[in-house]
């Protein structure tokens, strides 16, 4: 009883901090003259205010304690803070990107960004500037897919919609090189929260690769980000989510994907950083014949908490979804995989597959894995499976018996496990970027020296 009172008192206090932030925002927010946007924000805030933060009693959050977020008085990181230097951002660049948009605490920073030379029909800008210049294009999609009733963090993000990435790929246009979106949390003299809101629209028959990359420069930070990705008929989109913030950071992200008829979307999540991560991926296969790959790797050490919440909705016939998440957990890290598949009544001939494989490298590492299938159609194929294991002694001995020392053999087996995820990514700059990050992080977490070579099947023989 007593504990409950303390918790709710903290919760109330915390909500007040957000209310202050919201009333401050209302005075001068971007697009405040747009009635639909004002209403969207207000609805988001009202919802958040009504329900507050989720607790362990909430089925969708039962493995993830948000106490650290609720108890920290995060304030909106918004105005007048100095930008990091270009030099500070240099290590985070991605080779081979078509362009890099840098968002500092959720705000677009043109001075640090490089727009490069984009193909005709590829529009890349900030949501704030698009709201100012072309609000109708934004209104057509923003908030139309995300159901913030489902998740208080999405409601909170919606309340604070101001800036983020805006990407539009015109009909039949192929944007070959990846679009790099770099989100950096910077230190403040208070715990800072940002709510990037991204809108990606790939029109009919277009193709694009988008990389969301979350980094930090120190300081307590909460990044609560939402991306709505609209993949129209016959479009092919690869989306990468890379989390590599430092141990003072919290990251809550939601990727809501709307797939049109015969659209093909791949979502790749690579989670390595932050103290606490909640990675929500929510594709809705809304048109016949859509295909969605939901691929992920989470690697945690120390006391990291990495929570993956997948919600795959089949709303049309003859769609396929394949979920593959691999976890590597060392130290006292805690991983969560929640894989929910909903097959709606009309989604006949659905082919949905889900696999979650985990390696625990210590006795104190922990994984909770939970499949959840809700099937309302009668002619479907749904499979799921989860495994939890250690590095196999037989495999280790086999490698050692060929002359490979123990540390290298362990690294090889871990990278092989990680490579199951890498192999599902198309060859190109995005995969190369992710691969080198994974190699160094796997080495760091497991205390094994990194090696530049990759055991990936594709890498060796050309």
């Amino acid at each position, binding site marked *: 009883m007593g504990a409950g009172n303390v918790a709710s008192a903290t919760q109330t206090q915390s909500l007040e901090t957000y209310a202050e932030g919201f009333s401050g925002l209302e005075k001068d927010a971007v697009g405040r003259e747009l009635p639909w946007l004002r209403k969207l924000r207000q609805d988001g805030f009202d919802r958040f205010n009504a329900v507050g933060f989720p607790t362990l009693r909430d089925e969708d959050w039962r493995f993830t304690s948000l106490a650290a977020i609720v108890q920290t008085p995060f304030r909106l990181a918004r105005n007048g803070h100095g930008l990091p230097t270009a030099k500070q951002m240099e290590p985070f660049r991605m080779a081979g990107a078509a362009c890099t948009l840098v968002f500092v605490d959720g705000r677009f920073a043109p001075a640090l960004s490089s727009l490069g030379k984009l193909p005709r029909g590829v529009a890349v800008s900030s949501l704030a500037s698009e709201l100012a210049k072309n609000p109708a294009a934004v209104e057509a999609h923003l908030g139309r897919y995300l159901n913030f009733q489902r998740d208080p963090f999405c409601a909170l993000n919606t309340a604070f919609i101001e800036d983020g990435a805006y990407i539009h790929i015109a009909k039949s246009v192929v944007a070959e090189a990846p679009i790099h979106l770099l989100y950096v949390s910077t230190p403040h003299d208070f715990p800072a929260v940002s709510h990037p809101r991204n809108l990606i629209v790939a029109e009919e028959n277009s193709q694009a690769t988008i990389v969301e990359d979350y980094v930090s420069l120190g300081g307590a930070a909460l990044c609560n980000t939402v991306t709505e990705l609209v993949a129209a008929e016959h479009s092919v989109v690869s989306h990468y989510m890379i989390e590599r913030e430092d141990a003072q950071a919290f990251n809550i992200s939601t990727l809501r994907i709307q797939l049109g008829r015969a659209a093909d979307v791949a979502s790749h999540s690579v989670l390595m950083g932050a103290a606490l991560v909640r990675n929500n991926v929510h594709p809705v296969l809304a048109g016949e014949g859509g295909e969605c790959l939901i691929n992920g790797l989470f690697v945690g050490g120390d006391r990291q908490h990495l929570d993956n919440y997948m919600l795959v909705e089949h709303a049309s016939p003859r769609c396929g979804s394949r979920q593959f998440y691999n976890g590597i957990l060392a130290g006292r890290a805690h991983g969560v995989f929640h894989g929910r598949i909903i097959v709606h009544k009309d989604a006949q001939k659905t082919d949905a597959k889900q696999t979650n494989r985990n390696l625990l490298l210590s006795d104190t590492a922990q994984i909770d894995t939970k499949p959840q299938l809700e099937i309302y159609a009668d002619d479907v194929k749904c499979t799921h499976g989860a495994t939890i294991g250690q590095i196999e002694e037989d495999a280790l001995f086999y490698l050692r018996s060929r002359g490979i020392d123990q540390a*290298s053999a362990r690294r090889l087996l871990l990278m092989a496990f990680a490579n199951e995820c890498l192999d599902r990514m198309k060859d190109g700059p995005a995969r190369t970027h992710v691969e080198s990050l994974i190699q160094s992080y796997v080495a760091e977490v497991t205390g094994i020296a990194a090696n530049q070579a990759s055991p990936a099947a594709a890498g060796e023989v050309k």
Partner: protein
Amino acid sequence: MSLLEIKNLHVNVGGNEILKGVNLTVDAGQVHSIMGPNGSGKSTLAQVLARRENYNVTDGEVLFNGKDLLAMKAEDAACEGLFLAFQYPVEIPGVSNAYFLRSALNAVRKYRGQDEMDAMDFLPKLREKMKLLEMDEKFLNRSVNEAFSGGEKKRNEILQMAVLEPKLGILDETDSGLDIDALRIVASGVNAMRSPDRAFLVVTHYQRLLHYIVPDRVHVLVDGRIVRSGGPELALQLEETGYATVGSAAGAV
């Protein structure tokens, strides 16, 4: 100096004594075969020599090329030139065969103070060995042993041996599960490697493999002891009469 000298080797596995005083000497250039019924300790001997952990050596010593083999880790024994072709090769998803082979070769080369080989130099060498074993190029990019048939796995073992060029090759029931064509290919791969400075220890239950890899000496292992040794004719005799007639451990050589 003999290449391999096993003296009075006693090995305990999970509280049971499996090897009860094995003595065996193998010189360079020779092929020795260890034959014996199931459960006689053949595979235990092979695993101990390859330095698998969890095998408790309670007595005896093993010299490999004059060095104390039992003091070596598995990777060091391999680098010193000992190779075990596994009875049950392990599948390693996510590691390509080509990468694995090159990593192993480079580990061995590094240990010997040689330069590492890059993929460009390595691949022609590998392809040549694969041809000998009639292995398709597709095996290079496939994960180690993953979804290989029994025969493909065994050929892959011999391929690894051909790449690593050990001083001593131990074949642990390499013939089990092989059809006659695969057996011939594997045997010709081994025979191609026979040389005056290399030896083989062929562990098998049946005589058939020895028809193709003709040994210099045959030893019969029963209940943890070598009970009889002889020339290749001993294998034929065993095939006809079975292990029961070889006699008890009392007749150890």
